[in-house]
């Protein structure tokens, strides 16, 4: 009754192609954005902002990146962590080599560098497909992390091995480093993610996105109708790595405060992969839902025993976490392989009919 398209006629193709063609959707999204930008920074405390929202947003960006590569273009990748590391370390080198460079330029640059690395490691995808490619991406994952660990140039020959992200400002407000306020950091990350998510959505609904999906669905047929597999696959690797690189840099600069290789190991790659499986492959919304899910789940698990009045050793928590992850992945794959995004669409479909049953 409330959620209907009746009366909303599209009089032009442009209107038909909008991201949110239904007015109610537009209102809903506007409300969410208003809340995100306006209310949360006011109301949220440091814990929520710093330990929940910021990692959620940063990982959502990584999830968007991986979704472009795996969900839209069909190239299975287990190298997300490695690319994030690439972004973090190149951002570090850039900020230390060019102290006057604006942080936004730094981020774009580190994204571009990671995109080049992504293209390099994406070249094998032309001959290697499916699981083989997944295993090949492990090569990039392990090699890159090893590289950043072993080659001292990346850490500026730091003796302790701990490299702190230098403080940087945007419009005069500190957004990175230990001194920055959580609200500032949050708004900074939120703005970046909002802009880049919109860009991603635009790309996926353009001919570029269609080419990606065509390669994913039937790469031979795609080539036969004229889509260049080489360019399409490499563009997916490049753009995906761009996003993952920036996410990696943000993780180090805004969230953790220092660049630690451990944050980008194979577990990170799995984590982001789980996000897009649970959230929904081939869906920008899904990337957000999946990221939210994966970020909130450990907190739920950690607090559940206390809630229930039991006490549990902390390493037990991580074991239970692993078990729950495993079960959830399997559950989603059985029940709804298209993830939370599809569940969301189904809910909206039902809402169209509400309050009638059908």
């Amino acid at each position, binding site marked *: 009754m409330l959620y209907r398209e009746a009366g909303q006629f599209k009089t032009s193709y442009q209107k038909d192609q909008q991201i949110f063609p239904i007015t109610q959707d537009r209102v809903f999204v506007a409300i969410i954005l208003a809340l995100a930008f306006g209310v949360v920074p006011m109301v949220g405390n440091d814990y929520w902002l710093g330990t929940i929202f910021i990692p959620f947003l940063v990982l959502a960006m990584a999830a968007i990146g991986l979704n472009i590569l795996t969900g839209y273009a069909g190239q299975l990748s287990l190298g997300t962590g490695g690319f994030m590391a690439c972004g973090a370390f190149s951002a570090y080198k850039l900020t230390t080599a060019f102290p006057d460079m604006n942080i936004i330029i730094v981020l774009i640059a580190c994204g571009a560098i990671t995109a080049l690395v992504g293209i390099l490691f994406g070249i094998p995808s032309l001959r290697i497909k499916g699981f083989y490619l997944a295993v090949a991406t492990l090569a990039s994952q392990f090699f890159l992390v090893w590289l950043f660990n072993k080659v001292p140039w990346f850490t500026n020959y730091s003796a302790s091995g701990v490299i702190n992200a230098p403080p940087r400002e945007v419009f005069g407000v500190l957004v990175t480093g230990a001194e920055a306020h959580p609200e500032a950091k949050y708004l900074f990350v939120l703005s970046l993610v909002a802009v880049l998510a919109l860009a991603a959505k635009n790309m996926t609904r353009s001919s570029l996105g269609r080419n990606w999906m065509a390669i994913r669905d039937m790469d031979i047929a795609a080539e036969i109708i004229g889509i260049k597999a080489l360019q399409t696959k490499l563009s997916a690797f490049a753009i995906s790595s761009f996003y993952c690189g920036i996410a990696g840099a943000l993780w180090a600069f805004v969230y953790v405060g220092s660049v630690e290789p451990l944050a980008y190991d194979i577990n990170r790659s799995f984590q982001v992969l789980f996000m897009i499986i649970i959230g929904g492959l081939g869906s920008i919304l899904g990337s957000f839902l999946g990221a939210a899910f994966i970020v909130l789940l450990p907190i739920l698990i950690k607090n559940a025993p206390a809630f229930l009045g039991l006490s549990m050793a902390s390493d037990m928590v991580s*074991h239970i976490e692993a078990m729950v992850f495993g079960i959830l992945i399997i559950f989603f794959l059985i029940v709804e392989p298209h993830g939370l995004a599809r569940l969301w669409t189904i809910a909206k479909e039902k809402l169209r009919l509400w309050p009638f049953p059908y």
Partner: protein
Amino acid sequence: MEILNTIFVAPFIEIASYPTFFFEVLIGGLLTGVMYSLVALGFVLIFKASGVFNFAQGAMVLFAALAFASFLEWGISVWIALPMTLVVMIAVAYLIEKLVLGRLVNQEPIILFMATIGIAYFLDGFGQTIFGAEIKSINIGIPDGTWEIGGMLIPEFDIVAAFVAGLLVIVLAIFFQKTRVGRALRAVADDHQAALSVGIPLTTIWTIVWSVAGIVGLVAGIMWGGKLGVQFSLSLIALKALPVLMIGGFTSVPGAIIGGLIVGAGEKVGEVFWGPAIGGAIEDWFAYVVALIFLLFRPQGLFGEKIIERV
């Protein structure tokens, strides 16, 4: 120029100067390689029979090892612990088939692959919840000393492991080629629908396959666990089995062996002779990069089936 010397010249000179040492390292690597092959074998079995890329093989190895080690710890004798663990692994296989694979029968391979990642995570967590996370040792009387052959020191343990692995491969080969069940497995691997239509019970077959893989995993787990102690890093070893499969081909038993040998030997030799120059710990990525380069020239691995795509 320094770099060129370090990579293309110096290591070879070193190898030439210390041939016995080189062979020692080589053989050590080959023996490790055999152990990789053991893990890879489990993959191949499952992939051959059901087309599922079982990412959980490593977790199964770890789980089997954990179970076995715990049984030993609880004072159960080896001869009872062994069949007990076997029963556990078969139960695991059955449950995997019933709860997971059975429900994903018509899905694309990628979905099945991701499901096995889920299984891997679950088994990791579950194993450590039940059996505890401290390092356990597996001591079943495999000799621990070293033999001296031609001036080289070879650990006895590795020789026993290689022997056991070889035995296992022969048993499996006979099983596949000569028995009815083996034939049925090969039929299923070729074409599920066709196998069903001649009356081969898919569910039973898959349970059998996963059980066999579980047994192979157990043997691998005991061997690796005995060598390194049972700990979480065992599942990282399993990750190492992936380059083995890439080189050998996912559907080939001999490929798993040869791939394992190549990876094991390559890693060790690479680490010892090239490692110090570039910073060490090459073993982290060496196998993967080699496999990657290999795949570029031969995407289906040494012995894998050529992927023919038609429209």
